[in-house]
């Protein structure tokens, strides 16, 4: 049936190993959270510092892109095994997204 799964019998050592592995992964997640906070702070600081717009816009867009990669690959586990098809879906979506934005900002005027 759709909800069937194989029963798992782990030895004590295997169980402890998996638990430790998860705890290590969780520390990695905390690191990516700290990086996201840091990137956000830089973005707000750059804007508050009042540099030239030609400098600010590429920087904050790049910071946003890095933050989204962290979110997708770490928080949403896209870096894990078995996410090939998911990456294909997302990159197709991102490709269409870029095309739409490029089209609208270049051919629509008022």
């Amino acid at each position, binding site marked *: *049936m*759709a*909800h*069937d*799964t194989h*029963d*798992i*019998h*782990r030895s004590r050592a295997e*169980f402890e190993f*998996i*638990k430790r592995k*998860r705890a290590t*992964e*969780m520390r990695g*997640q*905390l690191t990516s*959270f700290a990086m*996201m*906070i840091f990137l*956000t702070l830089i*973005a*707000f600081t750059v*804007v*508050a510092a009042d540099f030239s*717009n030609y400098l*600010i*816009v590429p920087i*904050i*867009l790049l*910071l*946003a892109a890095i*933050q*989204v990669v962290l*979110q*997708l690959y770490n*928080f*949403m586990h896209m870096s894990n095994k*078995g996410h090939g*098809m*998911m990456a294909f*879906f*997302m990159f*197709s*979506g*991102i490709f*269409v*997204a*870029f095309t*739409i*934005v490029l*089209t*609208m*900002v270049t051919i*629509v*005027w*008022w």
Partner: protein
Amino acid sequence: MDLNKRYTPQTWPDHPETATLEGKNKFVGFWLLLAAETVTFASLFATYLALKDKGPSGMEFSASGLFELPLVFAMTMILLTSSLTSVYAMYHMKNHNFKAMQAWLGITVLLGLAFLGLEIYEFNHYVHLGFGYTNSAFSSAFYTLVGTHGAHVVFGLSWFIALMLRNAKRGLNMYNAPKFYLAALYWHFIDVVWVFIFTVVYLMGVIG
């Protein structure tokens, strides 16, 4: 097989969200939905960028005069933190610790409600200034983009609350593990969209 079969941390699979066929199907379908959502939001972002500070009337409002960064900064930090708390919830889900998962989901919901409260306050503030939905092309594009994101937050919160209440007595099993996992994925995606909203709408709006 009995859907409500009991598990212990020792017998719980490594990836409970994809351990069953049902879970695998949900997982693939949900990522497909997220890719489609990316396109939905891209079209709203594109509309906003094309119509920013434009409109036949209501030109007394501009992005650089309207938006205030301290409020947006607070909203960003709250939503980012709620993304981390849902990661904690999924960490405990994978360790088959139901109570800890429910507790972290509860914190996530509270942070989401705080975000929503600030957004309602912000919109209410703008409307009182005279910047309503029909004010200009700019205002319509702004409210549609940020409002659609807000609607996703409302949906994500309702989803979490419904799952928490419905499964409160059931505990974690193969039936609900994929459901919790997908709700958490949805919540991360909401944060992904917000990263672009605070960058493209607010930060790029303030600099004019």
